[in-house]
């Protein structure tokens, strides 16, 4: 942008107009491609040609020669050898992918994940070879520090620093763990990454093992991901056959073993200390930190634990360099982030965008906006522990600090779009129901406190809310956030606190007026038959509690005292004759 991209885009627009190509050529203004040093760049399809260092006259030439005559201009083509390029070249002409930038997911959807040849052909294991041949462990760590990569599991701890601390521990035995215990409802980033490209995770872990001095790696993955497990196992077997895993990797003295451990589906086992407990054979419950796993982790040994997405970034950092990586994203949050975009948005899907992309760009440009012409209400980021941000925050850039400042979190990458048909009390209740039932039960604030918050929310949505309930939620929420033992409890109140902060009037309406403006909370709504009723009797026949009456071909009525508000009549009626009131 700074280098005149907007200007070029206007120029291009004029040129297309002049040649009458406006309807046939689509312009995508893309995010940073991580090639700032090449000046303004442009990718032209057909042909996936990457042009760089563009100046004004070049635009007209591109339109004239490339678009009209089909002759690419060799002078302007730049050959960039970045690992992520291939994805962009294949999918870059599709709107959905135009604003994305794929580093962790660079091979997902491109290669055959069950064939190591596909991975090797795309420079697979080159990063490992480079580290083993050209770099000392400290140089690997320094490269990571330069890259600015931060933990993608949610907390955003600087990865290089974590590696350094683990490497600095003097111990004959160390471990490397991949946290693939993805538990957020609706999140599938890790699953897709492993299913689409298992080798990149393995390669990342081996580089980690080399850097910190560990010879044993463990992938902790939830048992509910059978395909991901199968592909990981296949990948490990193939890597072993190629001398890429086990003793004397690639003919060097580096030895590394890998093992898969299955999680039994406890959400809390995504928390690193609980995960370690689980691997040790104990019940997955977090323990107080310090000591951090980097110092005393699995079986009391220094343990490097990162999540799937972080590991998947490592090979790119090594091959393309920390300097290049750090040019992507924002000043404090470098690189890209994967999100599972879901909810009331046209294009749901798995996306990877440069840090700093705004929520608006994600929801409207990539996600295609809200379906059925409904109005945007809020976006919930960070999974069940994140916050709900209203329209005022749409221009918030997605990075660790900005999201935290707005009252939400990056989390592991859930992103749920909420439209006007959703009740914010109901949304908060939904997430809290999940966290309170997934609390490990160890610490009091999380175990007892979230339960009480859930009870208060339930009574508010049932129309039994009392004056002072909102204040109680705030008081409990604040205490739970500050007092809980682990990240689960410390973030569990976020959906409630952020909806109170941004949608307080909805809570007040539920309590004071006993109304739910989104018409979601069953106790606060009623179904009524309007004058469009033709008396067909369909609703009457379908009503499970037989409370609809009326003669054939006459307007029917619902007995409100006995209606259970199941909504079947509304779903049945073909004449739009039933309203939620």
């Amino acid at each position, binding site marked *: 942008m700074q280098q005149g991209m907007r200007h070029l885009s206007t120029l291009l627009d004029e040129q297309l107009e002049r040649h009458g190509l406006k309807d046939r050529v689509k312009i995508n203004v893309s995010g940073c491609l991580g090639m700032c040093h090449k000046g303004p760049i442009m990718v032209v399809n057909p042909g996936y040609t990457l042009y760089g260092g563009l100046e004004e006259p070049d635009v007209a030439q591109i339109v004239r020669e490339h678009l009209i005559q089909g002759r690419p201009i060799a002078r302007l083509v730049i050959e960039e050898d970045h690992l992520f390029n291939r994805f962009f070249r294949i999918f870059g002409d599709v709107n959905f992918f135009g604003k994305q930038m794929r580093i962790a997911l660079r091979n997902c959807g491109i290669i055959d994940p069950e064939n190591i040849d596909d991975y090797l052909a795309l420079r697979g294991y080159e990063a490992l070879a480079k580290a083993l041949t050209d770099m000392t462990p400290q140089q690997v760590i320094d490269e990571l520090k330069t890259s600015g990569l931060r933990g993608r599991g949610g907390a955003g701890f600087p990865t290089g620093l974590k590696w350094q601390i683990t490497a600095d521990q003097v111990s004959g035995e160390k471990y490397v763990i991949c946290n693939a215990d993805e538990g957020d409802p609706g999140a599938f980033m890790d699953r897709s990454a492993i299913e689409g490209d298992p080798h990149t995770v393995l390669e990342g872990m081996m580089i980690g093992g080399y850097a910190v001095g560990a010879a044993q790696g463990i992938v902790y993955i939830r048992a509910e991901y059978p395909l991901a497990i199968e592909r990981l196992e296949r990948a490990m077997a193939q890597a072993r056959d190629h001398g890429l895993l086990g003793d004397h990797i690639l003919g060097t003295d580096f030895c590394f073993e890998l093992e898969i451990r299955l999680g039994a589906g*406890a959400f*809390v086992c995504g928390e690193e200390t609980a995960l370690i407990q689980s691997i040790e054979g104990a*019940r997955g*419950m977090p*323990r*107080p930190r*310090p000591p951090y796993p980097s110092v005393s982790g699995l079986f009391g040994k220094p343990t490097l634990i990162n999540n799937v997405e972080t590991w998947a970034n490592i090979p790119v950092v090594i091959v393309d360099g920390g300097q290049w990586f750090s040019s992507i994203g924002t000043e404090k949050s470098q690189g890209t982030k994967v999100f599972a975009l879901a909810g009331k948005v046209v294009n749901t899907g798995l996306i990877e965008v440069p840090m700093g992309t705004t929520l608006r760009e994600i929801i409207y440009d990539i996600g295609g906006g809200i379906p059925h012409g409904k109005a945007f209400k809020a976006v919930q980021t960070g999974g069940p522990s994140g916050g709900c941000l209203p329209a005022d925050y749409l221009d918030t850039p997605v990075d660790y600090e900005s999201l935290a400042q707005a009252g939400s979190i990056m989390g592991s990458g859930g992103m749920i779009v909420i439209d006007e048909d959703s009740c914010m009390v109901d949304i908060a209740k939904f997430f809290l129901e999940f966290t*309170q*039932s*997934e*609390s*490990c*039960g*160890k*610490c*009091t*604030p999380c*175990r*007892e*406190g*979230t*339960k*009480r918050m859930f*009870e208060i929310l339930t009574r508010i949505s049932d129309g039994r809310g009392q004056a002072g309930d909102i204040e*109680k939620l705030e*008081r*409990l929420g604040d*205490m739970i*956030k*500050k*007092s*809980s*033992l682990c990240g689960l409890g*410390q973030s569990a109140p976020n959906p409630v606190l952020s909806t109170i902060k941004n949608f307080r009037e909805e809570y007040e309406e539920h309590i004071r007026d006993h109304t739910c403006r989104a018409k979601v909370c069953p106790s606060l709504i009623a179904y009524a038959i309007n004058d469009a009723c033709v008396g067909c009797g369909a609703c009457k026949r379908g009503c499970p509690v037989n409370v609809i009456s009326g003669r054939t071909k006459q307007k029917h009525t619902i007995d409100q005292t006995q209606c259970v508000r199941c909504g079947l009549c509304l779903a049945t009626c073909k004449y739009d004759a039933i309203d939620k009131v």
Partner: protein
Amino acid sequence: MKETVNITINGKAYEVQAGQTLMQAADVCGYHIPRLCYHPDLSIEGACRVCIVEVAGMKNYVASCAYPVTEGMVVTTNSTAIRRARRDIVELLVDNHPQDCHTCERDSNCELQRLAFAMGIRKRHFEGERKTFEQDLSSPSVVRDPEKCILCGRCVRMCEEIQGIHALGYANRGFNTVVMPAYNMPFGESVCSQCGQCINVCPTAAFTEHNDTQALFETLNDPALIKVVHIAPAVRAAIGESFGLEPGQNMEHQTAAALRRLGFDYVFDTQFAADLTIMEEGSEFLERLQGRGKLPMITSCCPGWINALETFHPDFMDHVSSCKSPMSMMSNVIKTHFAEKADIDPARLFVVSVMPCTAKKSEAVRPEHTLHGRRSTDLVITTRELAWMIKSAGIDFIHLEGEPFDKPLGLSSGAAPIFGVTGGVMEAAVRTAYELYTGETLIDIELEAIRGFKGIKEASLNIDGITVNVAVAHGLGNGARLLDILRKAPDRYHFVEIMACPGGCVGGGGQPYPTVNSIPLDEGCLQQRADALYGMDRGNTIRRSHDNPEVQRLYKECLGRPLGEKSHELLHTRYAQKSPQGIVSRKLTQ
């Protein structure tokens, strides 16, 4: 590393030792931060969050039990915000607790109750659903009441880290979390050794002994029965605490007086049978030392240890002495020799023992301990239960004039009271075995090497030119460790003593709850109780079991000789492997 660090607590500067936790440092500086799940002998759980404090620069509150002090740390323990958060946390515990203090066994002795009072909870804001559970009454010793559990985890850690039994663990999640035995099997059928340490460390009444006081009161009012009671050594050293006395007062004579006032016809002393045990066990040891039986020989007095043996270490069953415990020996002697001498129909005798122990309740119901088809010991009550009965019956325990035990089973040597402290059985046995073997009297009878609270203690003695190596372990975890040593080096020891409870019987699962200013199993308190027992030994003119004239008379009139036919019938027993077999916890505290 620097020796000390400078920290600020509540605006005042302190220089404290480095490497401590914030809580430890604050304790030294005179700030007792409220706490619940913390216990100095157990691992740091950080679960209750009652000990949170504010640390400048930290976004969240910090659990002071788990957080190390660092240079320049600025701590606030009592700000309005932290007081409110702490209060709310305790209220959340109270909200999910049956508010039945009036009818609760631990009323006025409950840490949650004290904490709620100290936090100033006068009104409750967050009432809601409360958990409901049935009591687990399957164990003869320990009652589990998950409804009263506040999930501090002290029992779990005690069972796992100190005892190595790991009979308890967490199940379910969130609000439904509960502490239970594996597979929620009845506690009595689990691998539990019935030691009762869960009761000792529980801050509420989630674990209590199987209470037999009501049954006993009814029996005491039955004129058809002749009621006999005998009390174990450690009871007298601790019962005073239940009446507000300092630990370590020998209350044997007041206890005897109180028992008579409760309605017992004969008040005997289990210590008599301790001397008897030494006669049998000492002789058995000498037999084994001379090649007749396996070495090392391991003591058998402790029923918690015997339960653990049969569940966890069946490979050592042949090593354990066949002697019954002093309690069972005593009851058998009462129901045979004494009944005969006093001309009482044994069927009319109702024998009660007062023990510092919950596992004794399980011992009493074992089928091996029967006589003429009835239990040898009809009922066992703990120190705590006796104290409650004395209070309930309105007996002025503190001001009672002391009374002696009844004859003939009330006399004991100085070797008997020390049965109540770790190492005592070994010390008593050595005193007698030495003399039985050499014919000479052991002069230096106080074996310092096996006194004290070190987990595993060792000593070597020269008995007539033979070097005899002995070892003593207290706490089942230390016991398991000692057995592991033996599995690797079977010849290392000749004689081994294992007691299930930390400190031996003085720290038993049936001993009084800690007073307001103390904590469960406080080492100072255990030491005071032990000192009382050692004092009784030193104050006794007879200090060797074989010198007890009543014991000698018993052999002359009834038993014949140690290990004789009659002894075998009345005083010896056997063991059998139990299922499910237990696996010793890997998380034993070193």
